[in-house]
């Protein structure tokens, strides 16, 4: 214990801690409570950024930056990639299936937390040294000096670990192709042989206000053709159905033009009853 020992930080840091600490806890709670994985990931990213700020406040400048670059930058993005790959919209049911799991988890979590906090509270931590001396020649330089002298073996071994992890990830996700991929020519020949959909599939709907792959094109009777949408979106149920809206607008437009022309509408009510046709169309698309 040198003269550097202090027992309190600046009040600015205290204010920062109390504000950002609340944010961090909220982010953590959000991580475990959000239904959707994407929201969880975003909450977590928030917490991590707050932690980066705390690192900076505690004199760990290098780690603060690394936290932002590596964690929030790289790792969280990797998480998001996987979330997207696995299904971004598939929300978790938060209903517990294991008997007593939630109570056990809550009880143990609270108990564990109390134990930890009791332990910290009991330790004699009234005074602290501060990093003024250790960071004298620059935080990064001093860290580097330690890493490449005292911790050089651990550093080398982490290098080996990273290489292993890369190879492992590659081996785990790599899929060996067991049969030759069919060429475009073979595929078109097969399509002709089957005799179905000889021309290309119909394009998705393109409207004045919508130009997106998730909007099915409409058949002449105004019902949506699911064939026009990508099968992945179709299976996820992520099709935006604009047919009803369009038909209603069309009707309104016609109504207005009728009004304008002073004619009565007598035979334009047919399309409204064609909603029952959609499932059949859907089935056909699924078979495809």
């Amino acid at each position, binding site marked *: 214990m040198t003269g550097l020992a202090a027992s309190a930080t600046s009040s600015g840091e205290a204010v920062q801690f109390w504000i950002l600490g609340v944010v961090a806890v909220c982010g953590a709670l959000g991580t475990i409570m959000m239904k959707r994985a994407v929201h969880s990931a975003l909450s977590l990213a928030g917490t991590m950024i707050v932690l980066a700020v705390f690192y900076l406040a505690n004199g760990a400048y290098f780690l603060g930056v690394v936290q932002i670059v590596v964690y929030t930058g790289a790792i969280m993005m990797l998480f998001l990639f996987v979330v997207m790959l696995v299904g971004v919209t598939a929300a978790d049911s938060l209903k517990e299936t*294991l008997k007593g*799991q939630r109570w*056990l*988890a809550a009880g*143990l*979590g609270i*108990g*564990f937390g109390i*134990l*930890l906090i*009791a*332990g910290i509270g*009991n330790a004699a931590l009234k005074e602290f040294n501060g990093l003024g001396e250790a960071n004298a020649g620059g935080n990064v330089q001093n860290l580097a000096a330690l890493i490449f002298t005292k911790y050089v073996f651990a550093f080398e071994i982490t290098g080996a670990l990273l290489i292993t992890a890369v190879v492992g990830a590659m081996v785990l996700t790599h899929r060996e192709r067991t049969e030759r991929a069919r060429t475009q020519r073979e595929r078109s020949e097969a399509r002709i042989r089957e005799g179905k959909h000889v021309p290309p599939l119909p394009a998705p709907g393109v409207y004045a206000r919508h130009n997106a792959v998730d909007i099915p094109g409409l058949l002449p009777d105004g019902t949506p053709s699911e064939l026009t949408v990508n099968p992945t979106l179709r299976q996820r149920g992520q099709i935006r159905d604009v047919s009803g809206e369009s038909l209603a607008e069309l009707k309104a437009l016609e109504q207005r033009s009728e009004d304008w022309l002073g004619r009565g509408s007598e035979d334009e009510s047919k399309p409204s009853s064609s909603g029952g046709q959609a499932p059949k169309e859907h089935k056909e698309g699924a078979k495809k």
Partner: protein
Amino acid sequence: MENLIALLVAAPLVGAALLLCGGKRLDRTGAWIGSLFAVASFAVAAVLFADMLGKSAEDRAVHQHLFSWIPVGGFQADVGFQLDQLSMTFVLLITGVGSLIHIYSIGYMEHDERRRRFFGYLNLFLAAMLLLVLADNYLLLYVGWEGVGLASYLLIGFWQHKPSAATAAKKAFLVNRVGDVGLSIAIMLMFTTFGTFAFGPVLAATGDTSEGKLTAIGLMLLLAACGKSAQVPLQSWLGDAMEGPTPVSALIHAATMVTAGVYLITRSGAIFNAAPDAQTAVVAVGAVTLLFGAIVGCAKDDIKKALAGSTMSQIGYMILAAGLGPIGYAFAIMHLVTHGFFKAGLFLGAGSVMHGMNDEVDMRHYGGLRKYMPVTFVTFGLGYLAIIGFPGLSGFFSKDKIIEAAFAKGGTEGWILGGAALLGAAITAFYMTRVMLMTFFGEKRWAETPGAAAPGQQVQHPHESPKVMTIPMIVLAVGSVFAGALFSVNEAFVTWLEPVTSFAHGHSPLSATAITASTIVVLLIGVGLAWQMYGRKPVPAVAPRGSLLTRAARRDLLQDDFNHIVLVRGGEHLTRTLVYLDHSVVDGAVNGTAASMGGLSGRLRQLQSGFVRSYAVQMLGGAAVLVAATLLMRGV
């Protein structure tokens, strides 16, 4: 010179290895090779003997340390030989008589297809027996002891195609095992008591050891001796062992095997001297066995079994003498040697008779053979006169001394033992005369041509055996005539053995002359009685029913029935009880434990839900416990 000792054992051992591993190419010459190795061993023994005679009595014991066998901390077992006067006597007997039996077997086994193997076994037998008598510690002696057991098993069951031979071999082996257990326990006791197995330290330390321990060791040694020497109560194997080829019987009875027990007791004399109770047990066993064997010998019609009974009885004499302590050891060994000569001669003679009579063993089908087999008759007759103790022949000197020593035991005990020994002498005279008369004298109870055969008679062409068989018999007959006298000149034998066995003159309540006279009287009574029953009247070709005692004696005095009822039945009951206990108690406990463990595991298995999150809860619980424990340890 002491380097030659190992050669004694090595020669027959090499012979055995050569013959047993040599394969068929040795089939023709195997008999001669086996005999050669036996004779070579005898030659080495003779050289060593000459060397030993040239030394003064104190320097005669020599040692040869070969190697350290099991050097483990406090447990030191060495392989070493000790050749002193006692071992020398045995070595000469074993190799000498053994060689003669080998030579005899060349003729006897001439037509047996497996004779190469037979001679290999014989050599093995010699090697094991030599190892037994030459070992300088009890552990090595035990090796030889077991080797003898193995070789006897192989030889008794040599004609294993006969179920009776296979059974007899098994019986001999099993009964011997009982004795072997005794020896192994004795050796273990010795190690815990003295911390060593070597003869020298063990026998020297008997003075400072409690009598109780010595008595225990002595009784275990006696059990061992009973097994090997066919003494009551482990005598039952000897009669059945006659299933082996006759030379094997001669070897077992004269030179090897049954003498091992006498050797063991004599060698351990210091232990018995310090444990009077054990000595009493020894003389009791000896006295009982000498009468038992003699009575059995009287009733047997099978010539070999009659001789087997005789062996049992004569070994009984030796055990009796050995149990008498220093006044008897030398006479026990002396009788052993003379017995080795005449019993080998008798067995070889019996083998010769069987050889000439188509392997017929029933004496009731013999009769009047003296004219047809003169050499066999004369040699057998000399052996006969020796065994009954005819004055001037070897048996007379040795047996007379034993009877004298028995009386010299003193007190009532002395009278009982002396009386038993005298009675045994009378019965010996009776049954041996019976054998002699039934075999070589009287009417022919067989026919030379089928036409002349009366009902129940067999057709035989008796003939004298070839030279290779008769010469050993002649040598042995010469030995049985002169050995006793030679040994008794100036108490030569006693003086020879004294440094090893120590010797004390017994003081008999009767004078030596009186005992000799009474011995001769009972001898004459026994011979006369036999002449009365078998010499003057014709012998019936079919055994008469006989008295109760005769019938019992024919069944070996019910020894097998006794064993069957007491041991086999008892064992069966014990086993059944144990099986029941095993099933209900032991298995019950084990199964119960297993079942309860199974039930517990079934409960515990519920924890293995397969859900990672359940495991994570358990992990967190464990972590919480650890943190709590850490905090508590630090005195929160």
